[in-house]
């Protein structure tokens, strides 16, 4: 039995209601947008890359609680990380959502564990990471 209230962990709802690093980032050096044509959700991730480190990050867009919370946590984790570390985080998060593997060093992102049971909603949590990877590849 799946419980949608396990999916909507209080931390996810909190990030949806009060997201971190939401808004424009005029100094951005890297940016990309990802969308889900099935639901119309769209998210843009922007980074300021300086001396091989992500000095600042922000997201903008519209979407469900899962995509907004994932974007908020992603932006928070990105600041101070290297692009390589963020790519590793994205790969770990993707593995975590799609297989029964431990959260490793996902930190707050581990609250997305409930998404595993909702196959059609995994794409929501992954959307900001898709945008982030595309931004870093620029």
């Amino acid at each position, binding site marked *: 039995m799946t419980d949608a*209230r396990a999916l909507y962990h209080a931390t996810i709802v909190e990030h949806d209601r009060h997201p971190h690093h939401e808004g424009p980032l005029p100094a951005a050096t890297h940016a990309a947008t990802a969308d889900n044509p099935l639901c119309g959700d769209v998210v843009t991730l922007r980074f300021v890359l300086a001396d091989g480190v992500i000095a600042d990050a922000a997201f903008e867009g519209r979407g469900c609680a899962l995509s907004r919370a994932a974007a908020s946590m992603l932006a928070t984790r990105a600041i101070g990380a290297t692009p390589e570390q963020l790519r590793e985080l994205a790969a770990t998060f993707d593995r975590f959502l799609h297989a029964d593997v431990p959260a490793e060093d996902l930190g707050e992102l581990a609250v997305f564990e409930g998404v595993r049971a909702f196959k059609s909603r995994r794409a929501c949590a992954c959307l900001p990471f898709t945008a982030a990877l595309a931004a870093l590849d620029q």
Partner: protein
Amino acid sequence: MSVSDLAARRRDFPALATRVHGKRLAYLDSAATALRPQPVIDAIVRAAQLGAPSRSVHALAEQATSVIEDARSDVAAFLGGRADEVIFTSGTTGSLNLVAQAWGRAHLAAGDAVIVSELEHHSNLMPWQMICGERGAELRIAPVDDAGRIQLDRVSFERAKLVAVAHVSNVTGTVAPIAELAQRAHAVGALLVVDGAQAVAHLPIDVAALGCDFYAFSAHKLYGPTGTGVLWGRASVLATMPPWQTGGGMIRTVEATRSTFRGAPARFEAGTPNVIGIAGLAAALAYVRAIGDVRADEARAHAALVAAVRAAGGRILGEPELAVVAFELPRIHAHDVATLADAEGVALRSGHHCAAPLHARFGVTASSRVSVGCYTDADDVAQFAAALAKLREVFP
């Protein structure tokens, strides 16, 4: 219709006994696909044991051919048309693409105009975008007002060759003024195509009274199987249309470098017919005939759904007259609504419902939608209302 009739109908639909996440199923997504009653399921299983229709002459093939030709007469009776005006397709989408391609290639030229409304399902928009682009014709959009009613006075019918509208909107649940549209279209020599996907399960249909030239619908919105639909076309109009798709069953003569074709409806039914789907459609038509007029029950359920959405503080898109209620809840995304409702056993739809331009017109990217069928009862509505209350607990 009494409560006992409704209870009896519910027993006809085995899917209603499904437990969802351990909960009773409240199926409020009939506008996407209606559930199927046992007689339809039985007819599908029986037809699966038949041979190739309209080809071979042995017994199993003859039976299959009879299934199709009897179904054609049933559809004609259901719509008020003639059997030779009934074309079997893969669904409303297939029907509308057929008109756009077969009629459009023969009749649309640069300078002509096609009119659709702002509330159309993508299936009644993109076929016209495509053929208008190919033929250099203009595609005009008739706007809708806040209620979801098409504003006929805000679109020019000048140079129009065809008008295509939904009989009932799959988002606003509003009923288009088809007879008036037919008059306006015919006054300038244009044809009227009606997308009846959301209407056939909820309104009596009479193509003669409506005055339209084409009427399209899908079996799966009418308690039948997916992959099966109908295009009714006025015989005099069908006679002016070349084939769209070519293949078996629609030819008169085939030589190595040229072919000639049969008349309607065979001309538009290339390939081995979908006997399983058509048998299911015929059984669905028999079922709706047998249960009779369910409009009072559906109207009661629909009004209760509207009230439940309002009580939860939802904003309804348009002023729905029947069948569907699309809404957004303040600060809760439609997909979160759908997932949390599912956890409570409530099946509803979220997204743009294949009507992105209409959502843009209402200033939203996605909405949630509940819809009624002949089996929707007060318990379904109560379960939906309780799910909306739970949503507020998760998203205070």
